[in-house]
Structures are given as C-alpha cells and as structure tokens.
C-alpha cells in the first residue's frame, strides 16, 4: 500500500503528517520525494545510513566528428545546446538527459558522460525505513531521483508513505504516479484553499483516490473545510492548532513517539486511510 502526502505549498504540515503516519504504522517505509528540501530525516534521525549516487547522462560532442549541422540544437526542446563558433556548447544544468541529440546526430559525434545530480540516502529509525532523495543545488530536475526512489519500492510489502514535493508540477505527478491513495494537507485559510485546489485538480487528473486532512485547525470558520464540503471531498480528519505539537515539530521530535495523544490521533488517521484505500481498491476491481 502506497500513500502519498501532498500540499500546494511548503509549510502546511505535509512532512509532519507523513512522518507521523509512518511512525504510527507497525512497520513502514518513509520516502522523502521533496528532493530540493528533504527534511523528514531531521525527525527520524535514521541510523545505518547508506548512500547511493544518482547519475544522469549528459551529451558531449566530439569536435572532430561534428560538422555543425545543428540537428541536435534544433532538436533539443529544452534548449540545452548552442552551436557557437564551430563548437557545440552543452548546458548541463538545463539538459534533461532525454538522449535525443545522441540519437539524431547524423555524424555520430555525440557521446554521453555521467553526471551526478544527487543521492539517495537510506537508513533505519525504529519501525521505519527512511529513504531520502537529495538533489544537488542548481540541477534542472529532480525527476530522475524520484523515479529511482519509487522504482526501488515497487515490490515493497510494508506500508509506504511518500512525502511529495510541494506544488503540482511534473515532479509531483511523478511522485504520486504509483500511489494507491493521496492525502491532501490543507491550511484553514483562503490562501490554503487556493493551494488545496491546485493539488485537488492534480489528483483528480490522475484519478487517484484522495482525502483531505485539515491541519492547524482553530475553533473558527475553516475555508478549506467549506471547500471540501462544497466539492464533496472526503475529510479524513482535523489536526488542531496546538502549541505542544508545534514545539515538538520545531524541535525535530516525532509527536507519535512522544505523546500518547498524538499516537492515538495518527493511529486513527492511519486506520481510516487504510480503510479508505481498501475501499477504493475494492470498488475499482
């Protein structure tokens, strides 16, 4: 079972939710796909760390073979290539490693070299296997890292919690591709509704079963809750705005492991999500 946790922007509590759900499960895998700013590991403080390099292929031209036809320059839709003064210039950070230029060069002047774009770090934190994708700064796209992260857990038998990057760009689509269920974390503000709407559209586009978790809830009116009612979106629960939770969170503590109250809250949430996921799978088959 793979559960993706997403939100339209950072700071809504996406990591708090995915970390605590993973910690609440008897045995689980936590995957941090927020590769530009992974911070789940700051909570789990995993031991036994193992690093794995993630490399992509970058083209390079052999000047002796290249005749300057520019087929490659015209082909590259990312505009990662320029041909200036009888020389091909490759912009490594712009290249998306599609391999097209290599394929289309009529002179076979292009070969590929490997370039590291980041690493995958895995370790153990109690009942949770923690896997973190880390993208080197300045790189064009973290998609290759996410692909690798998700490929490695395809056969996973334990529950998997995927902490997605914020937003709804293609890197998020990649992260939820294999998910059985999507949890959308929303803040109780008008702006929060706007962010929720973004990810809501995304999960609908991908036909992913989904529900909303209302975070930072106060006694007052909650525009995000209204939005859910109006669109008939399943509300999975509410996490109250709570100083204690905030303090634990900013100290890098996992609430579930420190406080029975939160253990219960996230256990219940987990049970509900599992039920929802089973229900969805059952009604789809």
């Amino acid at each position: 079972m793979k559960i993706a946790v997403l939100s339209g922007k950072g700071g809504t509590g996406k990591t708090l939710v995915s970390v605590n759900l993973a910690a609440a499960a008897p045995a689980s895998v936590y995957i941090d796909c927020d590769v530009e700013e992974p911070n789940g590991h700051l909570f789990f403080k995993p031991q036994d760390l193992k690093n794995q390099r993630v490399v992509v292929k970058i083209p390079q031209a052999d000047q002796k073979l290249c005749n300057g036809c520019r087929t490659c320059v015209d082909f590259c839709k990312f505009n990662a290539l320029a041909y200036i003064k009888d020389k091909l210039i490759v912009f490594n950070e712009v290249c998306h490693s599609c391999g097209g230029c290599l394929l289309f060069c009529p002179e076979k002047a292009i070969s590929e070299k490997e370039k590291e774009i980041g690493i995958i770090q895995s370790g153990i934190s109690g009942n949770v296997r923690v896997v973190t994708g880390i993208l080197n700064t300045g790189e064009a796209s973290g998609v290759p890292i996410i692909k690798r992260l998700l490929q490695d857990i395809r056969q996973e038998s334990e529950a998997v919690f995927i902490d997605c990057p914020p937003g709804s760009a293609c890197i998020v689509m990649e992260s939820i591709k294999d998910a059985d269920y999507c949890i959308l974390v929303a803040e109780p503000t008008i702006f929060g509704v706007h962010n929720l709407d973004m990810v809501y559209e995304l999960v609908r586009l991908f036909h992913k079963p989904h529900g909303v978790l209302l975070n930072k809830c106060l006694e007052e009116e909650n525009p995000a809750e209204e939005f859910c009612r109006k669109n008939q979106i399943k509300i999975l629960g509410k996490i109250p705005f709570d100083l204690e939770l905030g303090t634990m969170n900013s100290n890098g503590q996992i609430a579930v492991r420190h406080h029975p109250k939160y253990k219960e809250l996230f256990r219940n949430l987990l049970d509900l999500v599992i039920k929802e996921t089973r229900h969805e799978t059952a009604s789809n088959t």
Partner: protein
Amino acid sequence: MKIVIPVDNNSMETNVCISFGRAPYFLIYDTKTEENSFMDNSAASSQGGAGIKAAQSIVDSRAEAILTPRCGDNAAEVIKAAGIKLYKTVNDSIQDNIKAFKEGKLNLLDDIHPGLHQHGGK
C-alpha cells in the same frame, strides 16, 4: 555595425522589452546604413532555456552588439562565447538607446542574473 535590441513589437515605435529571452521580437539595426529589421523570437514561448535559444538566433544574425536591460547567465555565456558585446539600455526608448550607443555612452552590462530560469521540470 549590426546591433540587436529585445523589443515588445515589430515596429520602430515600440519599446525595449524588459526580458531578453522572452522578448517577442528582436530589432536588428545597422548603425551605418540605419536600416532596421525585426526578427521573431521563437524562443519566447519555449518551456526552458529561452535565453540560450534567443542568444543562438542573435549570434546567427551576425550581430556585433546587444542592447538589453538584463540578461540571464546561460544566454550571456552563449553571447560571450560568440564574442558579442552586451550593453545595458538606459531607458525603454529604442531611439534613445541607439543614439546613446552611437555616441559611445552605453555601459557594458555587468549584472548577469542567475536563476530565473523557467525549467520545465520544477
């Protein structure tokens, strides 16, 4: 000498465009013959690397100088590799800038900005 200016429209009444890579047109102006022509910037709508592609077309037009309010680092690398000089525009008027250029009053552009790239992947 052939100079290029990113512009908002394809007429001499238009203004200098605030963006380089995403400018809709480039004015190509010959300071000797005072002839002008406009080039569509096919890079304006591209997903990423617009500056690189725009710079490539300008290099291909055999311009010797570019007058622009700003320029990204990748585009600047292409332009530099081609040996083309980058000058900073003084305001948004084409005429003012051409005049200032002819009088040698324009400064070289030195604030090349990083980032701002609209990568398809993010």
